[in-house]
């Protein structure tokens, strides 16, 4: 139980995907202009990341390892994620109209979100022999929550910056990157928490 708690704290704060692992930077920079959209993206990523963690674990344990196809891991994982995103989109459309409208637009963007593949791969390498099923799922959840936290906080900061009169050449990405850097400074306080 405590190991799961550690995974959560590590995923959300200490090894925050964006702020200390540089995963998912593209959506972090791209979908952080409005807090609402940022939150929607965060939720969509959370949804997919937990599922992806579970499914890639199953694929790896029951398909790749038994047939010693580990070198195919990258191809297998990325395909699984692509298919998963498509399926999730279709299922959501059928099952829950409301949820689809909330998350739908973000789903196609997730395929190329390296955080999902990154978490899937790190599930296999985090500890000797990789996390077990539950740990993988929790790790996926924690990573996604950390991603959401960083994304939403960053979006609020950018909304604030949009109201400022920044120097002209700070507009857009330079300002966003430096702001992200200062944010990362704050996250460094958790280094060695575990």
């Amino acid at each position, binding site marked *: 139980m405590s190991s799961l708690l550690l995974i959560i704290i590590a995923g959300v704060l200490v090894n925050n995907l964006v702020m200390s692992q*540089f995963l998912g930077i593209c959506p972090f920079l791209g979908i952080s202009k409005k807090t609402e959209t940022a939150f929607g993206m965060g939720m969509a990523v959370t949804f997919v990341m937990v599922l992806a963690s579970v499914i890639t674990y199953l694929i790896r344990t029951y398909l790749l390892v038994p047939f010693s196809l580990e*070198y195919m891991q990258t191809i297998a994982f*990325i*395909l699984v994620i692509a298919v998963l995103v498509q399926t999730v989109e279709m299922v959501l459309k059928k099952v829950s109209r409301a949820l689809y409208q909330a998350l739908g637009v973000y789903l196609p963007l997730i395929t*190329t979100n*390296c955080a999902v593949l990154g978490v899937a791969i790190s599930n296999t390498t985090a500890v000797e022999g990789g996390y077990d099923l539950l740990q993988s799922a929790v790790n996926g959840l924690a990573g996604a929550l950390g991603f959401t936290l960083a994304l939403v906080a960053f979006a609020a900061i950018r909304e604030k910056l949009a109201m400022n009169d920044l120097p002209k050449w700070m507009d857009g*990405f330079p300002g966003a*990157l*430096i702001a*992200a850097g200062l944010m990362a400074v704050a996250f460094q306080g958790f280094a060695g928490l575990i």
Partner: protein
Amino acid sequence: MKKKKSMRSVFLNGIFGENPIFRMLLGMCPTLAVSTAVFQGIGMGLATTFVLVFSNLVIALLRNIIPDKVRIPAFIVVIATFVTIVDLMLKAFIPSLSQSLGIFIPLIVVNCIIFARAEAFASKNSVLLSVTDGLGMGLGFTVSITLLSACRELLGNGTLLGAQVMPETFQPMAIALRPPGGFIMLGILLLIINASSKAIVKRREAKAKEAEL
């Protein structure tokens, strides 16, 4: 109105006009993550270039065969194949680099540059042009990531490619090697490039005006 693209312009486009990092802001994750040392930067750049060139080549070859509906999975498979090749080759021949780049080698798969070039260029252009484009983009990526990692290594370690460059009295600024340093350094580089390119454009306009007068 399709303009005929010369190989030279396609090549240079990748390095200057549409520099993947400084202009298009693509492939940020590996850029920020591995740019703590020049050696890693160059390694990452070349690995990406390799994948770019070959995936562009294959996709350009197959561009008329792949049906439109399944092109995205097809691209992914092609890219992932070459990434796997690079991954295995690095593990075999330069294990130290493979170790330090770690997870970011398999993550080349989701590097938006490669996917973007496949979608935007290779699937619409001839094999030769696509390969040139891959080379240009790859080199642009490599040069940029090397520049960033040079800055970070210099400030954070006082060295370049491991050789001491700064004077002995220099106290290395360790934060440059940490995550915040990556963001801030890239931000500052972008800022400088934006400001100077704006200044250049301005000067050109002023000159053009002068010429008119």
